[in-house]
């Protein structure tokens, strides 16, 4: 029993994140990992797989549905413990902060489940960091583009050089306590309105 591979089901509407978690679990030596993105029909999946642990993202509005299946369905084995141990509130907090919840079959030993949840929490955190960095990089690129356009407008309309145009944008931004990109955006918008049709 102790050496039996745990059957793990990952439910995550975000396919990329789910595959990152799946890869992590496989790296950790879990070979029986299944992933579903859509909770629709998950009851049948659970019945077929009889998972020991289910990892689900907290943003999923179908968490209540999942719990109710454990509550009411006679065909599903009844996993009642959540997270690792209901008394372990720091673990629950870490899981919630990361955006992950785990349902665990009652009676499963805590030390076998904790590494799985630790791994999932780690991957969730890494994923949200990655997403944040990606979003920042994207907005930086967009900022640079709009600043370049604003510089072009200033250079043309005032007959000044690039460096001077940038200085003008920066001084205005400082005076108004706003970002250079915001000033550039307003300028581009205003120039668009003033253009001849």
């Amino acid at each position: 029993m102790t050496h039996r591979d745990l059957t793990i089901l990952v439910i995550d509407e975000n396919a990329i994140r789910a595959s990152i978690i799946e890869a992590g679990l496989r790296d950790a030596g879990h070979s029986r990992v299944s992933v579903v993105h859509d909770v629709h029909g998950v009851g049948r999946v659970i019945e077929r797989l009889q998972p020991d642990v289910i990892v689900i993202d907290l943003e999923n509005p179908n968490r209540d549905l999942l719990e109710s299946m454990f509550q009411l369905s006679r065909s599903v084995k009844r996993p009642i413990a959540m997270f690792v141990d209901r008394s372990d509130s720091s673990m629950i907090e870490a899981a919630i902060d990361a955006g992950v919840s785990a349902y665990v079959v009652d009676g499963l030993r805590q030390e076998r489940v904790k590494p799985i949840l630790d791994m999932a929490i780690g991957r969730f955190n890494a994923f949200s960091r990655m997403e944040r960095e990606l979003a920042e990089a994207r907005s930086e690129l967009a900022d640079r583009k709009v600043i370049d356009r604003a510089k072009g407008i200033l250079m043309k309309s005032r007959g000044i050089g690039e460096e001077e145009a940038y200085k003008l944008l920066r001084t205005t931004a400082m005076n108004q306590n706003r970002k250079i990109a915001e000033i550039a955006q307003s300028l581009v918008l205003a120039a668009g309105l003033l253009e001849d049709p």
Partner: protein
Amino acid sequence: MAATADITLGYMPLFDSAVLIAAVEKGFAGDEGLSVQLVRETSWANIRDRIAVGHFQAAHMLAPMPIASNLGLTPLSLELVAPFALGLGGNAVTVSRALWGRMFAEGAGPGTDPSANGTALGHVVENRRAAGEPPLRFAVVHPFSGHNYELRYWLAACGVDPETDVEIVMVPPPLMADALATGAIDGFCAGEPWNSVAIADGAGRIVTTKASIWRLSPEKVLGVSARFAAENRPALDALLRALYRSSIWCGDSANHEELAALMSGSEHLGLPRERLMPILTGHLALGDGTTDAIPEFFVPHAKGATFPWQSHALWFYSQMVRWGHAKHSPTKAERARDTYRPDIYRQALKPISAPMPGANMKVEGALTAAAPVGASEKGLVLGPDGFFDGRIFDPDRLDAYLASQS
């Protein structure tokens, strides 16, 4: 004297979170010296978990939810108290157009009468069984919800066994209209605005309402962790006063346009305000071109709507026992009853002279006419209340009631 405290309140995107939202947005909480942050959640399970780890001090909860938690029926059961009710009514039962067509052929309509429409539904269920068709599938939002227990009560009273004659599944409220439109379910019982959304989408027909199945019945409560309630009573009391004042504001028809606009904001329900007005006016578009006027469709303040009646808690308990969710024992019944805390309510609202009922329990269904009650300064009018099938729930005769449930 005002208490000073930071409180984070969790809520689900349903209209009956209005008293909580208005308490913050209209400044009633600020007037009590409270700094309250509202957090919209995606599932009741998240609300429970975040109360467990202290992210939320209090939250919008399904009325049976704190009881289920205290009886150990839910994962991560923690001790909760319900010191305040967030209004009466607010739900409806909506069925697909196809099912409505069959119910109509069996004598349903034209309004939302639970007896006539329930009887018609019973005939449809019977016909389907005779024809070898699969049972109808109804959805509710959570097993421990007023929706689940009302739907079951209504079906059973109309001769439909909710355990064997139909299938009851769980669907999150914002997904109900879609599930109905795609045929995944044949009907649902959910809070507003999700019935009106299904009607506006052309997916279904409202066949009855919570207000007519159990008149003036409880729907959501303020759920608070027992620990927070024990350690932060001044803050909790201040919160209840803010909520009480908010309930008066929400219940005043002069504020309904403003309330609908507030709730329609993208940070709350994110729906056009005209879809939210039916719940406040009680003029529901039923979905077949007709409307019905249900004056007590949603009652945020009047008729003791904010009082946490222990008889309400015991009725939910009686249904938990009836449907096999809990095994009856006198200790459990007491635990269910004491989850609702009229003592906290009374103490918190005493300084603002809110009218109070004389008792903590009432016989549900005993008031056939509106009756002024209570010993405190201003009058309080209760009732008429009760169940559509005329049955009485006397909380002092719980065992007899349990025995009489089939």
